[in-house]
């Protein structure tokens, strides 16, 4: 139960860290996955597994759909996810409780950075980069196979990424070489 509370608090922090809603379920899943790579203690709590769309946490999905501790903490607006009034109140409570802890502040800032950078990616870009960076999660992924078979799509994805400045030129060349583009 203690882990469930931590998971819910982190979900509220992730979604509430910036004013803008999280663009989609895919984004919250992958952004939280990156956070668990950044904070290894969270890996056991969220328990990301290999899934047809890459790393997936059922715990996170359940929290977004039916939070336990904060009634209706999250709202949906089309595909995007945001904090409800209750969720915002709890976000403020969490921050207030931990404001004096430097580690918490650094953690919160890292969450903001993840949101700032990863929110800008579209679904294909996000999936592709996660697959390419964490190849362990390619297994069981039909989506990965369908992306990779389509060289035109992969090329489009990485050209968009370099145009946006989301990846460096060296990263672009590295991917081109890896996929024989």
């Amino acid at each position, binding site marked *: 139960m203690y882990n469930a509370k931590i998971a819910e608090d982190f979900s509220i922090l992730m979604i509430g860290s910036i004013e803008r809603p999280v663009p989609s379920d895919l984004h919250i899943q992958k952004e939280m996955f990156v956070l668990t790579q950044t*904070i290894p203690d969270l890996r056991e709590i969220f328990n990301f597994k290999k899934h047809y769309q890459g790393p997936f946490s059922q715990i996170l999905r359940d929290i977004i759909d039916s939070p336990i501790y904060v009634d209706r903490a999250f709202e949906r607006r089309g595909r995007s996810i945001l904090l409800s009034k209750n969720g915002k109140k709890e976000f403020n409570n969490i921050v207030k409780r931990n404001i004096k802890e430097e580690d918490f502040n650094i953690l919160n800032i890292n969450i903001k*950075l993840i949101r700032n*950078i990863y929110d800008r990616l579209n679904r294909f870009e996000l999936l592709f980069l996660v697959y390419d960076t964490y190849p362990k999660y390619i297994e069981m992924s039909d989506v990965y196979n369908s992306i990779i078979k389509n060289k035109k799509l992969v090329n489009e994805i990485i050209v968009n990424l370099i145009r946006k400045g989301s990846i*460096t030129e060296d*990263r672009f060349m590295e991917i081109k070489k890896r996929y024989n583009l």
Partner: protein
Amino acid sequence: MTDLLADSSFYICFLDNIKSPENLIKILEKFSSSFPPVIFSEVKKSKRSKEIFENKKLNINIFEGEIHISEVLRPFFSIEQKERGEHELIVLAFICYNMKMKFELVIDDKQARNFIKRNLIYLSKNLKDTINFLCDCYSVYGIFKKEEVLDIFNLIENSNYGVKKEIMFEAKKKMRCN
């Protein structure tokens, strides 16, 4: 105290390229220098690194903790770039910015600089390359006299530290005008 977040090429310039650790120490005495893990291990490879890491007068912070900052921007940089560590420095700079700390971000790598300008534009204000940071060591921080900076520039030009002629030309011009 202002935080100095510099990439490994900045430190290695002084320690190895121009073999001038004493000038590096003069700079570091004015700052609190933060080293993310990859940059720390890169700089430590230098035989002269002890002159800074074992110098008790310097305020050196090695970023160690439960947060693996190298993971945050991992998908966006190549393997070689991640081995140099600029992606970690960018995370530290973002932390300093959000904690409203004064900091200088010294990065020479053009691609890392472009990444900042395209994604985290507000960090650009604090972003400099080694050469322009040295200009500020004279004009802003009063660490060096003008002639001392120009001497360091000459040492750099005659070393195998790669700096574009245009950057050096503009910096020397700036120094002469100040």
